[in-house]
């Protein structure tokens, strides 16, 4: 089984997670830039973070046989802090990088005027850079937030079929689908969606343009949720082709709109020891490469 997790914050995860994901069938991830839990106070903190998403994190992922791409943006929460908004001016030099497959996560948090501006500006940046956009729908006041998001997308230069609306659920799926956008569902241990509800939702609404992700980050979350959804789908009677469509071909099609996806990552390298991310290899492991 091959799995593409189209939304996971690997910066917050360990190498054990990478290994477990690989063993579960995960071969590709997209890491959207987002809030780090602790608010940032200067644009430079964002640039170091973006550099890590374009340098260290893909390197780390490749050690475990996983292709890593990212989406970059000023997230809606921090778009409200004027100390962070200069990030919008620096984004063009980042959006031209090969590993950037969308502008994101953008969208709404508290639906403020500053968030309106950041969303509109960044949808335009996506259009200018020939990139799709990954738009998160708010956790609070979700349906109203979705409607406002769809309105802003309609007014933008970006076609709805180049937009992924994420963190959807039973209350927002229909209007999101009617908008013509791609549909993202985050599966979490306690909040957002769960495996069984995901199965029910797919039975009802079909697999077209549907992406399932773990959205795993620094909070209570599970980087293997994509595999758990795949197993739940098979158990519910869906076939391998259906699972492959939702968990591989759909995310490949959406992020492939960037023209920048490279999915052929070599098998994990043999373990090497010393002060690297693969430190602590068993004593019997061959040294060097």
């Amino acid at each position, binding site marked *: 089984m091959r799995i593409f997790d189209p939304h996971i914050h690997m910066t917050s995860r360990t190498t054990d997670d990478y290994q477990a994901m690989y063993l579960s069938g995960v071969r590709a991830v997209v890491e959207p830039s987002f809030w780090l839990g602790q608010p940032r106070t200067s644009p430079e903190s964002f640039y170091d973070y973006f*550099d890590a998403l*374009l*340098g*260290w994190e*893909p*390197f780390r992922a490749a050690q475990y046989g996983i292709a890593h791409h990212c989406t970059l943006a000023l997230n809606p929460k921090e778009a409200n802090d004027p100390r962070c908004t200069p990030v919008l001016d620096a984004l*063009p*030099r980042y959006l*031209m*990088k*090969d*590993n950037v497959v969308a502008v994101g996560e953008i969208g709404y948090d508290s639906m403020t005027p500053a968030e309106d501006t950041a969303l509109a500006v960044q949808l335009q940046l996506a259009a200018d850079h020939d990139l799709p956009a990954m738009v998160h729908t708010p956790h609070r006041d979700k349906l109203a937030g979705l409607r406002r998001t769809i309105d802003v997308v309609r007014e933008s230069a970006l076609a709805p079929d180049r937009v992924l609306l994420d963190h959807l659920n039973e209350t927002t799926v229909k209007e999101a689908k009617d908008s013509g956008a791609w549909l993202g569902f985050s599966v979490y241990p306690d909040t957002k969606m769960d495996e069984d509800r995901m199965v029910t939702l797919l039975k009802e609404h079909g697999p077209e343009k549907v992406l399932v992700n773990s959205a795993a980050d620094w909070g209570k979350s599970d980087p293997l949720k994509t595999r758990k959804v795949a197993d739940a789908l098979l158990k519910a009677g869906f076939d391998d082709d259906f699972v492959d469509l939702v968990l591989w071909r759909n995310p490949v099609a959406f992020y492939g709109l960037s*023209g*920048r996806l*490279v999915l052929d990552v070599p098998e994990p*390298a043999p373990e*090497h*020891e*010393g*002060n*690297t*991310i*693969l430190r602590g290899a068993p*004593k019997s492991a*061959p*040294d*060097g*490469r």
Partner: protein
Amino acid sequence: MTEPSAPTDLRAQLDQHLEEPARTWLDQALTEAAAHRESADTRPLPLWERRFAEAGRRCGAEHADSVRVLLLHTALADPETLNRMYAQGTGVERRAVLDALPELVADATALPLVEDALRTNDTRLVAAAVGPYAARHLDAHGWRHAVLKCLFTGVPVDAVAGLARRARGDAELARMLGDYGHERTAAGRPVPEDLSRVLALTAPTTDGPAGATGPHSPSGKES
């Protein structure tokens, strides 16, 4: 370094492997880089630097390194430009800047880039950092730690330019390698094969004084 890095070699190699539309894209990108050399493009993002960023998706990840190095050569990127492109670069872009240093920078002004790369744990950058530019300019202390880092992180020491020349008669490097080997043995772990290879290279030449550090670090001191 086994890859050809002279501009003519890179161009010949790319001409042989690239197909359309990558070939036309490269011609255009190189023309832009050469034009930049004639009249400096002062826009925030000069055109050829955009081409540098998009080399992977235009020519394929397997050719991106060569294309980027060739663009840097063609634009005759100065140390200030190289510094900025490294600082704003992705991992693979930084690797290309490091690969271009021996051709583009005669003195030691770009050494901070090599030192930055050697501080990372990204083995792609560590391997690119220990090329001919480091062999030429890294001081004895920094160079010894670079060799040791290669052994630690599993970068084959074949990547270290000028290894035999700089290792010859380096008693301090021999001591560091011996200590590392001892630490490995004490932990019940195997000693990297490359370690004994480098250790053998530290033997003084028969006609030179024992403990000499070679012609490029005449003081023999750590800085």
